[in-house]
């Protein structure tokens, strides 16, 4: 990452000191301040200090309520080579099945990285342009990583693709696609990037996202008859309590811990 870094470097503040009055870290305060281009987006709320939510609040921290803010849609100019990529993508999509405005939901530039949120039905068209257009030429997709956000209704499951262009000196972009939990379908890009074959199988295995058009979407890490998809947030970590000198230590996902 060369040029993109400079743009967003200043946006991120390392200091995570908690602001006593609002309970926000300084980074979150900065995000919360009305600033262009990236209007922050509230994606959730954090209560208290500890992960345990069952039972009455015995910690005294229950009143602590903090919004979870992530960088929102960016306005042009994005900085660095990101504008060029957006322009070329827009031009490359002309004459195809969908225009840029139809295919791309929003563009987020955060921490020197460009994330293009693509509507799932147009993912394959976008991937094809990213690979075939000489001015973009992202030869390599380094797999797909699933993320499960159970609280974001309508877009619980995200598939995150990272593209690398060797031709253009190591440019990287991220393409993010989401689907609702009750309709877990995302088109497969294996027809464009055969390398994504196993990566999509892994994401199906771990998150239950069905990649439509994948040639053999089977489990890859878990046994074929395994019930459930382990990386989803509603799937327990598992584990057994361990007894040590008379006291019992619960498994990691049941311990009271900071969150």
């Amino acid at each position, binding site marked *: 990452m060369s040029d993109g*870094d400079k743009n967003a*470097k200043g946006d*991120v*503040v*390392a*200091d*995570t000191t908690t602001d006593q009055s609002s309970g926000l*870290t300084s*980074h*979150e305060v900065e995000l919360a301040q009305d600033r262009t281009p990236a209007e922050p987006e509230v*994606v*959730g709320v*954090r209560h208290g200090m500890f992960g345990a939510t069952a039972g009455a609040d015995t910690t005294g921290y229950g009143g602590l309520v903090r919004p*979870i*803010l992530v*960088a929102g849609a960016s306005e042009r100019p994005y900085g660095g080579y990101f504008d060029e990529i957006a322009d070329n993508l827009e031009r490359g999509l002309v004459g195809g099945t969908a225009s840029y405005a139809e295919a791309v939901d929003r563009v987020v530039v*955060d*921490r020197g*990285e460009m994330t293009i949120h693509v509507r799932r039905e147009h993912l394959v068209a976008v991937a094809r342009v990213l690979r075939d257009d000489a001015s973009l030429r992202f030869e*390599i*997709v*380094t*797999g797909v*990583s699933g*993320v*499960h956000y159970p609280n974001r209704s309508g877009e619980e499951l995200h598939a*995150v693709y*990272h593209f*690398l262009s*060797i031709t253009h000196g*190591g440019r990287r972009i991220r393409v993010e696609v989401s689907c609702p939990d009750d309709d877990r379908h995302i088109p497969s890009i*294996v*027809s464009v*990037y*055969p*390398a*994504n*074959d*196993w*990566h999509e199988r*892994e994401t199906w295995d771990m998150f239950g996202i*069905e990649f*439509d*058009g*994948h*040639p*053999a*979407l*089977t489990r*890859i*890490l*878990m046994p*074929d008859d395994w019930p459930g998809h*382990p*990386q989803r947030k509603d799937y327990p*970590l598992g584990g057994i309590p361990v007894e040590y000198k008379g006291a019992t230590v619960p498994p*990691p*996902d049941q311990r009271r811990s*900071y*969150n």
Partner: protein
Amino acid sequence: MSTHTEFTQTEVPDPGANDVYATSVADEQASEGAHVFNAAGGDWNDLVDEATSLGEERIVVNMGPQHPSTHGVLRLILEIDGETVTEARAGIGYLHTGIEKNMEYRTWVQGVTFCTRMDYLTPMFQEAAYCLAIEKLLGITDDIPERANVIRVLMMEMTRISSHLICLGTGGMEMGATTVMTVAFRERERLLRVIEMVTGLRMNNAYIRPGGVAQDLPPGCIDALREMVPEVRRGLGELEALLNENPILKGRTVDVGVLNLAGCMALGITGPVLRSTGLPHDLRKLDPYCGYETYDFEVKTRTSQDAYGRLRIRIDEMYESLKIIEQATDRLQASEGEHASVMVADKKIAWPAQLALGSDGLGNSLDHIREIMGTSMESLIHHFKLVTEGFRVPAGQAYVGIESPKGELGCHVVSDGGTRPYRAHFRDPSFNNLQAVAAMCEGSQIADVIVAVASIDPVMGGVDR
């Protein structure tokens, strides 16, 4: 054992023009009504008799997951016709340990201890990728002390050599050359001795931490490095003398496991396999991190596209790594004794204590214990909070790709603003590169499968995670 591999498909692909694997459907039709031999609990001779009576040589064999030459628990499903492999598929997942899921239940710092165990031959690289990704999320990439970056480079290059040595050693052993193995392991031991001196452990080091490294180099380390480098260089010469022009080795590796540039691009292959096609792709040059742009080294390529070329590339890369180690040693010697920090200055992120070796083993340094137990209550609270609670990472996501000995190792981390990773995903190079097994092996002899797989250098700990 069933000779017919079955896939439970949730979505039958449309066998239209878009189907890139159209042949698989054709195969299914072709194999309809074919004999399925069941070897479970039966007499092997009966199976052979039955196959002989059919006059057919075509059988499906599981190579692995417990086969010694499949690098751990890799399962190769080979359809063979006589000695020729007509179809090869890799079955993985036998070493899946759920590391990524586990990391979601520990603090950001504890995650290092988990991810170092993924590809157990390249522990430093997972640690580095993970820590660089966290640092990107925190926005402290430029605040990492210079000395910490040099130590990171030093440790990564030592790990690169030790990983390549294992690849050559076990690869040689699989072909029957046990001397290659003993020489490689002997040289690897020299590197591990220095790594142990610095980190306290031979592998699973958990040495690179968010913000820097766990501790500075111990006294005498520079001398050990200066002593080690020429010894390893001599050992590499011995390996070269043993391998480079060895007619048996060349007979086994030349034109075996061929994969051209187009194949590598289609399958997303990186690392020595890609460089054996002549493309000088190395993330250390293309997208430098940890200050790699300031070191003098070359990206080694060959154009033979085969297992022999990959072997030679690995040997050449080890010499380049030794060059980087020497440069890093010079820099570390120059900055020694200046009390140069190896941890980021921000006390809200930096691990509070430096480790020290006491009479009862490795632990917090006595100076630090004196301070938190004897003089400063605030230091004690700070230490306690940082170690038990950890630091908070602003919400967002980051991806970092680094050049591991096997190719691009990517780390995608997502934070929800808490003290633990919301999601940490590793793109392991072996996981991706194993997809090339079919392209490399189909049409070749069974014995070549071993060589082709060894030239990919997969480590199942990383593949299955």
